[in-house]
């Protein structure tokens, strides 16, 4: 057998392949050669073969058959073998592999090897990917090495200890004694890794943190080391662009942050050094700024005095003006974090932040936008909104939705006047109209309805906007709705806020009909405009024209439009006396809590809102339902019937399994019961006995919701005592409609062979008005017939 080709030779060969297929062929050939070489237990070339395998693995080809070979290499005496073996182990043998644990013994031996580089390999492998079992087995060895005077090994042992602690946190205690004099080392490698180790311990355990603060006096030690780093002259070994060991400085600052957080004494002890670092660090290169950044984060997190905090924010302010994009980005991110706590200080940099909206970099623009919204308040709303609207005009599409939502939110909170509010909304709708979120439309409609004195102005502006452009659906929808509601104000020319326009009823109807036929309008928009036309029948005098339009759409292909048209037709023909009441002006709507899109459903704006205000409910749904055979979509409040088991009786299969349940329909005389009734959610149980197996009770739950909002993501879970068996079938739905308009049903089958008293624990989870709700309850009031 000729000697296997060398690694570099293989790499060169593979690189000459011109197609993927060619490469694959070469690799397969080589893998076959390697496999036979492995089979022959060839010690001499094992190392070379594994190295080649690792190269092929990097190209994406499978290499698992080399796992055991890596183990053999690790066990070899030759350093070359060990080096490649451990590398292979780190690449191929992570803790998910079965043979991973076989490494433990080899690593243990190598941790005690006479050559420090072998020990180093073992520590490195253990510290990178040792599993929890391995860490448990070898923690003692690591702890021993943590106390050695050999700094090469000590630093590696420290990081290995960090890994052990991450994998097996309970072992943290055993490393505590060894940390005692870690920080008195001169060697920077050991210092750095020791700080990492101490950081890990402090982050994980509040007890450790307290211990290090008080007993070990860690803060003074760290302050001293940091001071030396800053004050010491040029040290060639650790210098980076004139700064001595920036990596160590950053790590120390981070540990100081943890020690100083919520602790007055520690924070005070580090005030001076923080001020010193903040003022003396060279800022011309990235390194210096990295240290400043860490310093700022530390100052903001500990209990620093206000002068120091202002210094920190000012550093961030200077960062914002830096030429380097990365620095600007980092500044914006940090300011975003601090804007809640140090609002006034951040406000001082508002103009710089707003300038960042014009930055070319996408990440910076996004951060600047978020920060700008966070800075908006009652005082600066007008100025800020001008900038933000300008940004909305010119920004990339990926920002428009978020920006529009942000503008709406800010306008809602801080609008100086109703007119300004409506103008702002108009501006957003006309510039970014296609990007606003779906729930903006109902929100805006509600806002407009409630701004009674602005109705005329609003409808006029919206009408003018429609004349310009009918492509942006949210704008068109809001405009249609408004024209439907306030069309009378429009034609009467009553506007106070601005010059009233002259428009006739026919012109208005032209526009609305134009929306109906336009290709740009979505079905939802068409629905809006048909309804608007209908509403105008009580506000305009050209009723005949409206009747004609409505009757045409009675045969529309679009089912939604057709239904509306037919119903409106019915309104004209049989219920004309009710028409004015039905179509009268919408009342002021109460805003449902917090972030609610209100109960207004997008698709129609006429009788749905009446659900919100029950007292205004026109008593019409009944006649409309009776009037025709249409689908009962309007105001459907039907109870879904109990799932009836309509299968005929079958002889019970041996053993009476639950699944074989085809009992008959004996709605036995077991009375129903209420199992749960809390916070508007009511759950009733109804019972059937499944004959012929009397041990099985079939319970149907009925969940109903008397609150104003739907309960979504509704999940019902049940548990029974051990002597029972339970089977839950799928629920009818995950949404329990509001105001008892429907129920969710689900079937439970309970096998009760020992005829024990039936008890059940139930867990309910659902989302109500955006907040998740969870409840546990015990059901003990089962009627005796259900289990006897």
């Amino acid at each position, binding site marked *: 057998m000729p000697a296997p080709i060398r*690694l*570099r030779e293989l*790499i*060169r060969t593979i*690189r000459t392949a011109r197609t993927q297929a060619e490469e694959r062929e070469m690799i397969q050939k080589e893998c076959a050669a390697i496999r036979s070489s492995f089979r022959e237990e060839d010690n001499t070339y094992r190392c070379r073969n594994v190295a080649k395998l690792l*190269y092929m693995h*990097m*190209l*994406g080809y499978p290499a698992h058959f080399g796992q055991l070979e890596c183990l053999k290499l690790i066990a070899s005496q*030759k*350093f070359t073998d060990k*080096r490649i073996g451990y*590398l292979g182990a780190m*690449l191929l043998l*992570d803790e998910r592999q079965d043979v991973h644990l076989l490494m433990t013994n080899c690593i243990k031996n190598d941790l005690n090897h*006479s*050559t*420090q*580089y072998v020990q180093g390999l073992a520590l*490195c492998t253990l*510290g*990178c*990917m040792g*599993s929890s079992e391995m860490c448990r087995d070898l923690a003692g060895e690591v702890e021993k090495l943590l106390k050695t005077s050999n700094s*090469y090994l000590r*630093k*590696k042992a420290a*990081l*290995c200890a*960090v890994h052990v602690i991450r994998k097996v946190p309970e072992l943290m205690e055993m490393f505590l004694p060894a940390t005692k004099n870690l920080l008195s080392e*001169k*060697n*920077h*490698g050991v210092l*750095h*890794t020791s700080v990492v180790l101490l950081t890990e311990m402090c982050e994980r355990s509040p007890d450790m943190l307290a211990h290090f603060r008080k007993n070990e006096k860690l803060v003074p030690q760290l302050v001293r080391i940091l001071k030396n780093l800053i004050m010491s002259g040029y040290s060639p*070994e*650790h210098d*980076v662009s004139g700064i001595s*060991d*920036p*990596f*160590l400085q*950053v*790590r120390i600052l981070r540990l100081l942050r943890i020690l100083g957080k919520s602790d007055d004494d520690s924070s005070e002890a580090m005030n001076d050094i923080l001020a010193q670092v903040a003022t003396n660090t060279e800022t011309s290169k*990235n*390194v210096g700024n*990295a*240290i400043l*950044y*860490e310093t700022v984060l530390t100052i903001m997190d500990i209990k620093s005095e206000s002068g120091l905090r202002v210094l920190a924010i000012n550093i961030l302010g200077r960062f914002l003006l830096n030429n380097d*994009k*990365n620095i*600007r*980005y*980092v500044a914006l991110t940090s300011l975003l974090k601090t804007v809640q706590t140090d609002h006034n200080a951040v406000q001082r940099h508002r103009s710089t932040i707003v300038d960042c909206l014009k930055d*070319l*970099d*996408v*990440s910076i623009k996004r951060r600047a936008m978020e920060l700008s919204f966070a800075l908006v308040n009652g005082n600066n709303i007008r100025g800020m909104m001008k900038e933000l609207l300008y940004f909305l005009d010119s920004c990339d599409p990926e920002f428009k939705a978020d920006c529009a939502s942000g503008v709406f939110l800010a306008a809602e909170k801080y609008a100086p006047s109703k007119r300004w509010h409506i103008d702002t909304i108009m501006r957003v709708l006309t510039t970014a109209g296609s990007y606003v979120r779906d729930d903006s439309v109902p929100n805006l409609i509600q806002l407009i309805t409630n701004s009674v004195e602005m109705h005329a102005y609003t409808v006029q502006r919206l009408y003018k906007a429609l004349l310009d452009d009918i492509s942006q659906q949210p704008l068109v929808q809001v405009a249609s709705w408004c024209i439907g509601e306030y069309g009378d104000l429009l034609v009467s020319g009553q506007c106070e806020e601005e010059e009233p326009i002259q428009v006739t009823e026919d012109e208005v109807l032209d526009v609305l009909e134009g929306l109906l036929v336009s290709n740009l309008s979505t079905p939802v928009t068409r629905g809006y405009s048909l309804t608007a036309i209908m509403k105008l029948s009580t506000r305009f005098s050209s009723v005949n024209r409206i009747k004609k339009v409505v009757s045409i759409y009675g045969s529309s292909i679009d089912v939604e439009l057709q239904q509306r048209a037919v119903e409106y037709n019915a309104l004209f023909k049989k219920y004309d006396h009710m028409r004015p009441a039905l179509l009268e002006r919408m009342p002021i709507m109460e805003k449902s809590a917090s972030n609610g899109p209100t109960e207004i459903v997008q698709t129609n704006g006429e009788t749905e809102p009446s659900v919100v205000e029950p007292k205004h409910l026109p008593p019409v749904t009944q006649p409309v339902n009776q009037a025709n055979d249409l689908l009962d979509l309007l105001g459907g409040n039907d109870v879904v019937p109990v799932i009836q088991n309509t299968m005929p009786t079958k002889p019970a299969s041996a053993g009476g399994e639950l699944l074989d349940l085809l009992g008959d329909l004996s709605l036995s005389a077991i009375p129903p019961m209420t199992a749960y009734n809390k916070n508007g959610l009511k759950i009733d149980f109804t019972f059937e006995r499944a004959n012929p197996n009397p041990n099985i009770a079939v319970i149907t739950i009925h969940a109903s919701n008397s609150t104003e909002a739907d309960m979504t993501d509704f999940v019902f879970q049940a548990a029974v005592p051990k002597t029972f068996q339970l089977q839950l079938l799928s629920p009818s739905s995950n949404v329990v409609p509001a105001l008892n308009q429907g129920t969710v049903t689900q079937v439970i089958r309970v096998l009760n062979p020992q005829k024990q008293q039936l008890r059940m624990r139930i867990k309910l989870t659902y989302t109500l008005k955006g907040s998740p709700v969870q409840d546990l309850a015990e059901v003990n009031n089962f009627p005796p017939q259900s289990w006897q």
Partner: protein
Amino acid sequence: MMRFLLLFSRQGKLRLQKWFTPISEREKKKIIRDMTTMVLARQPRSCNFLHWKDLKIIYKRYASLFFCLAIENQENELIALEVIHRYVELLDKYFGNVCELDIIFNFEKAYFILDEFLMGGEIQETSKQMVNRSIEASDMLQEDDSSEWFEVELFG
């Protein structure tokens, strides 16, 4: 801690992969795909930081190679850039004016150097000279494999 370090060419060919947490092969492949797509799609003069899932991705291009380092959210991005730069300097010192071909043909050496600089997702040694000396000494040990072991003294 750092979660992973990837080196890939402008065509998206992987040159080095170092993972600091256990991840399945399939997940690794997906991450590599995601990283190469995301980083290669960036405009030339954009900022070097990206957000991906719950991690920060720091990337920098050196000649024909992209260095892509993933760090946890609480880590300092600016110092991560320095970490990448330090690794490049170490490679440069070792190979003498390092280029992509050096890393392709000597990938195992690139790993050895990395393993003297970083470990378990943290920096192991902050001195360039110390890392270089360790690598040189280890290389010498390799050469003397035929003879018996001998101790190599390191300063400090």
